[in-house]
Every structure is written in C-alpha cells, then in structure tokens.
C-alpha cells in the first residue's frame, strides 16, 4: 500500500482546486439546506472538525510550544494562515485587556470569484470554525466571528477573536 503519492508539496498544490472545491461545497449546501443560517452553522462545524486535525499538523511542522499569551497566539494564527492559505492577515485592534484582537485581510483565497447573494450567508464561516477547533486543542476556549466582510461590500475582511477561558487538563478519577 503506497501512500507516497499523497505527500503533496504545499507549494505545488494548486490553490484554485481548494477554492473551487470549497465553492462547490457551499453551493451544494445552500441547495440542500436552504436556510443560510443553518449553512453557516454547518460550515462552522466542518471548520471546527478540520481545525481539530489541522492543529496537529501545524504543531508537528512548526514545533511550536504552547502559547502563554494571546499575543503569541495571534502570531501563531497569522503563521498558520501563511502556511495553509498563503494569506497575510494583519493583527490589529487589540482590546485594552489584551484578550481580543482582529485579523484583517483584503484578499481571501477561499472567496475568490465569489458573488454573494445578500441572504445572511457567511461564505468563509469555515475559517472561524477552524480557528476555534484548533485553539481548543491547545486548551484555549475562544470565540471567533466576522466583523467586516469584503463579500458584503466592506473594503476589508475582519475576523475578531476573543479569548474566553483556558481549558484545564482532565484529572484522572480519584485525583484532586
């Protein structure tokens, strides 16, 4: 059983394939589910499931340590965007408590060539899901949502990430 062929070089993968596949997925879901809010929820869930797996790949590739501070986390997320989507989001708008920040980008590879119906669909809902899933695996509970979206006529796309709490290790039965 040879799995060598499945080892794709990140630089050689045609990113348009991803864009088109994602587009097909979203339009199929819109056909089947109809209610855009439910599509958003499903996309977020798919993203979450992807994030849970992607984080392992990311950690193995970058050999990062656990982040102790949100600023470090923001850097890592930025790095992950570069690594997986070849995107350069900027980290801005820190809240004074340092527990909330925005990721801003002006071009998203997932939403190239997309024209949005104005029905409440969040086309890139996969991304916040993936961030939430990935951070959950490194014991960070966060909330993630779009503040601005280019597809809705804004000049940039802005994703807000908010730290909720640190998740604790599960204690084995019988320990305190």
């Amino acid at each position, binding site marked *: *059983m040879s*799995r060598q062929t499945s080892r794709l070089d990140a630089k050689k993968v045609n990113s348009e394939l991803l864009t088109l596949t994602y587009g097909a997925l979203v339009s199929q879901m819109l056909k089947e589910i109809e209610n855009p809010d439910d599509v958003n929820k499903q996309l977020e869930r798919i993203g979450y499931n992807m994030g*849970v*797996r992607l*984080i*392992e*790949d990311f*950690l*193995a*590739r970058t*050999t*990062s*340590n*656990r*982040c102790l501070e949100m600023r470090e986390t923001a850097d890592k997320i930025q790095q992950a965007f570069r690594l997986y989507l070849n995107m350069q989001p900027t980290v801005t708008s820190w809240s004074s408590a340092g527990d909330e920040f925005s990721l801003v980008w002006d071009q998203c590879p997932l939403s190239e060539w997309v024209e949005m119906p104005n029905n409440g669909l969040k086309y890139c809902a996969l991304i916040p899901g993936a961030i939430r899933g990935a951070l959950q*695996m*490194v*014991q960070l509970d966060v909330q993630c949502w779009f503040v601005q979206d280019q597809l809705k006529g804004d000049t940039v796309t802005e994703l807000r990430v908010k730290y909720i709490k640190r998740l604790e*290790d599960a*204690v*084995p039965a*019988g*320990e305190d």
Partner: protein
Amino acid sequence: MSREEEGKLMYGMLFSIKSFVAKISPLDPKDGFLNYKTSKYTLHCLETPSGIKFVMNTDNQAQGVRELLKKIYGEIYVKYVVRNPMCGIGEPITSELFKNKLDTFIKQAPLYTVRAS
C-alpha cells in the same frame, strides 16, 4: 492486569509526575517532565502542546529518544492518524496502516538497530 487498567495507571502516574514537576521546580519549567530512570529502564515522555503524550520505555543507554518521539509524532501520528479521516480523534487507534508504519519506523531507528545487532 489488563491493558486498559495499565493504561489508566500510566496516565495517572504521568499526570501526578507532571503536576509534581510543575510545582517543585524552582524555575519556570519550559518543557516540563522529560523522563525518569530506574535501575532497569528509562521512561521517556513527550507531551505535545495539544496534550498528546508519547511514552516510550527503553534501556538506560538509549540516546536521542526525545527526537525519536518527535519524529513519531510528526511523521507517523500526524500522517497516518490525523490525516486519516477514518481515525477518530480521542478514540483508540485501530488503524492497521498506522500500526505497520510505526513498527517499521521503530525498527529502522538507530536506537533499535544498535540493540538488535
């Protein structure tokens, strides 16, 4: 003792050692618990930031086990479990492919070949 019981004991022990090391260390522990040694064997532990623990018992002479565990994580676990959608995360791994790859990988490791020859 059943495998499952043994697993639970192992987890409990690692959990206790981890909190022990974290509390007793005078400095901020960067990597935390790495290994312990008895007169007969050494236990090596690698914990990833995502909380997965890789544990390997070796004889006391073995070198570079930590690097080996990192490779097992990056090249075997991530490839054949994380990227395999049929393997659930947080469930026991039943994949035969993973088992075979891990077996071959360990048998090719310098640590193993030195002992075997």
